[in-house]
């Protein structure tokens, strides 16, 4: 269910409703059973009384209907049938014709049997039947012969000469309308009460749900009301938020902190990029402004235009690098892995770096282990990383400096490439800020204008390394030597890539 509130309301409502329904039905059934039991007991008691009152006089059942009907407490319509189990002779009360005698009325069992049935006129009835032996009575003296046919039913039940009375079956039924009406009233009461309780419970559930969920609503309102400026501000402290929501707020705070860092990084990047673009733009503007400031020879104009062109190329290069860095940061650029022969590639890139810095001729020391396996990596990203490091090494090496290039597999599944060079004036602060975009260390002063760097090369290397699943560490060896160390996974396509954590290990030894 998408809505917690609806889920809670419906869930709790269903539970409460079920409990209420079960309670009402149980209550009804218990009462019904009790009422019917009482009804049956009453009927049985009455039937036994009737059975005791039935006498066998002169082999005939004597039954005083008039007496029953006029007696106190017996002014009801009686449905009585007495049958001789041997001869099948029946004695029925006059009302029996209204309902019709059902088939089960007859029994030879002395245990009472209770049956609920419907009369032929649709009346609901409940009966008891059992077998009994009537009492042998003394024949009454007849006041007059006229009364016998109306008030007393006398049936010949004993064969002449028989002394043992035969078994008889007594069936007595009684309408259950009064009990049914009582139960119907009970059912109505329970239904109305249940509906009322259900309504009140629904309102209570709604209120409780709202109350319980109010911190969540408050939290979402707090987040919704945030402006862009305070998007990264932490959420209300733990004591204000319910215990159940604290993990959520902590997770939110962590997420917001990351967003804040990303926003700050984007802002810094934009500011720094704008700054870096302003300077060559100023150079371009000044060069062209100076060119047209006074009349010059066509050769002089050409020289200045060429200079402006060089600056614009620098601008274009800077923009390309910025775009590359942005693509790496956003993860738009994906590596394509292939097998690279380390020695050949490092030699080629070193030649390129030296060709690009003809004024600096440092000594190069190679320490490439013979058993280093081929490296599986993205060639273009690998070249970008190594070119940057070698270019820096060549550019910043002092006269007579030494560049050392090492490649080895110090541990399983790892190939390490290290590039170290002599340097001057570097301190730990420079090392720690080395990967910051647009940072220029103190040693940048040694760089000629033609090789002036924007300060984003190492930052790009870091992102490229992350894309390749590699790590890049920098170490200041003593005070005159800097070493960049790259650990490449031997099989970057298999297994887990390193997290895109752009933090670096900068240390001094």
């Amino acid at each position, binding site marked *: 269910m998408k809505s917690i509130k609806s889920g809670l309301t419906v869930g709790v409502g269903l539970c409460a409703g079920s409990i209420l329904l079960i309670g009402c039905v149980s209550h009804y059934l218990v009462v019904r059973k009790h009422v019917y039991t009482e009804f049956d007991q009453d009927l049985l008691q009455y039937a036994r009384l009737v059975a005791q009152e039935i006498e066998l006089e002169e082999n005939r059942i004597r039954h005083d209907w008039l007496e029953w009907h006029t007696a106190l407490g017996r002014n009801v319509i009686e449905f009585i049938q007495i049958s001789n189990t041997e001869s099948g002779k029946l004695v029925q009360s006059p009302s029996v014709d209204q309902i019709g005698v059902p088939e089960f009325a007859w029994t030879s069992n002395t245990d009472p049997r209770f049956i609920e049935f419907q009369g032929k006129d649709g009346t609901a009835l409940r009966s008891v039947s059992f077998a009994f032996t009537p009492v042998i009575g003394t024949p009454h003296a007849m006041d007059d012969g006229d009364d016998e046919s109306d008030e007393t039913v006398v049936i010949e039940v004993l064969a002449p000469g028989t002394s043992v009375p035969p078994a008889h079956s007594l069936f007595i039924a009684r309408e259950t309308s009064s009990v049914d009406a009582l139960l119907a009233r009970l059912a109505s009461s329970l239904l109305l009460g249940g509906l009322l309780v259900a309504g009140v419970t629904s309102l209570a559930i709604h209120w409780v749900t709202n109350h319980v969920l109010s911190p969540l609503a408050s939290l979402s309102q707090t987040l919704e009301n945030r402006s862009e400026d305070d998007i990264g501000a932490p959420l209300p402290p733990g004591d204000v938020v319910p215990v159940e929501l604290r993990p959520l707020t902590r997770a939110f705070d962590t997420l917001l902190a990351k967003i804040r860092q990303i926003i700050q990084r984007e802002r810094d990047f934009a500011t720094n990029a704008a700054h870096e673009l302003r300077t060559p733009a100023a150079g371009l503007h*000044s060069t062209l402004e100076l060119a047209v400031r006074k009349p010059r020879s066509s050769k002089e104009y050409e020289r200045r235009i060429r200079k402006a062109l060089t600056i614009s190329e620098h601008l274009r290069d800077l923009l390309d690098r910025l775009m590359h860095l942005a693509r790496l940061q956003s993860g738009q650029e994906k590596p394509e892995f292939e097998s690279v022969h380390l020695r050949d590639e490092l030699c080629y890139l070193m030649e390129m770096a030296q060709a690009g810095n003809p004024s600096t001729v440092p000594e190069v020391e190679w320490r490439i282990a013979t058993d280093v396996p081929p490296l599986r990596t993205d060639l273009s990203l690998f070249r970008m990383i190594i070119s940057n490091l070698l270019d820096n090494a060549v550019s910043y090496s002092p006269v007579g400096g030494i560049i050392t290039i090492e490649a080895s597999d110090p541990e399983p599944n790892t190939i390490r490439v290290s590039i170290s060079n002599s340097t001057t004036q570097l301190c730990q602060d420079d090392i720690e800020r080395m990967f910051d975009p647009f940072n220029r260390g103190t040693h940048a002063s040694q760089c000629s204008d*033609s090789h002036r760097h924007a300060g984003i090369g190492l930052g790009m290397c870091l992102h490229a390394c992350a894309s390749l699943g590699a790590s890049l560490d920098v170490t200041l060896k003593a005070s005159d030597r800097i070493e960049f160390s790259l650990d490449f996974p031997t099989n970057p396509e298999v297994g887990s890539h390193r997290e895109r954590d752009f933090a670096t290990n900068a240390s001094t030894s």
Partner: protein
Amino acid sequence: MRALVVEDYGPLREAVTECLRDEGFAVDSSSNGTDGLWRAESFSYDVVVLDIMLPGLDGLSVISRLRNHGNDVHIIITSARDSVAQRTEGLSYGADDYLIKPFALEELIARVQALVRRRYEKKNPIIRIDDLELDTLKQRVTRGRSEIKLTAREYGLLSYLAHRRGHVVSRTEIWEHVYEDYSGGSSNGVDVYIGYLRKKLNANGRTNLIHARRGLGYILDTP
């Protein structure tokens, strides 16, 4: 007048340097803060054009150290840092002016000349001494109604003397404020250029305005 340009971006540094030279300034340049600080502390400049984000030592540190050492040279910051806070920060460190990159060279020159005038307490860009008129904006020198053509060094020398009108200026001061990198000249060379200048200014029998003070130097003033 002598100016120092401290800017790490070569093309911009060269353009500013050339433009200031065109305006008659003797210009030294530096590509990093450490060298810039050394020059500013070692030599006497009328104005320093200083970038902030410099390799070696940043521009704000350069200003701070100069001011702490009692150097009151006029400094104009040229920087890409354009926010109010950044500009305020630059000025509060002791800079005299702040120009945001990219800028028009004309504006930079105007601001530099304003700083030079402030240094020598001149409000008017046109300096008049008797019938000599020096338009520092147009780099135009006239005497009476006739314009006098001067070389860049002669103009620089006259401009410096004119800004210090009425004050005796030593040969060393002239040498320091007119010659770039202290090359191509010496205190004796100053006498030679004073001679050239006198010859042009005093042509047609006009009154001599440049007077020698034996053992002290020269003074430009009415007779």
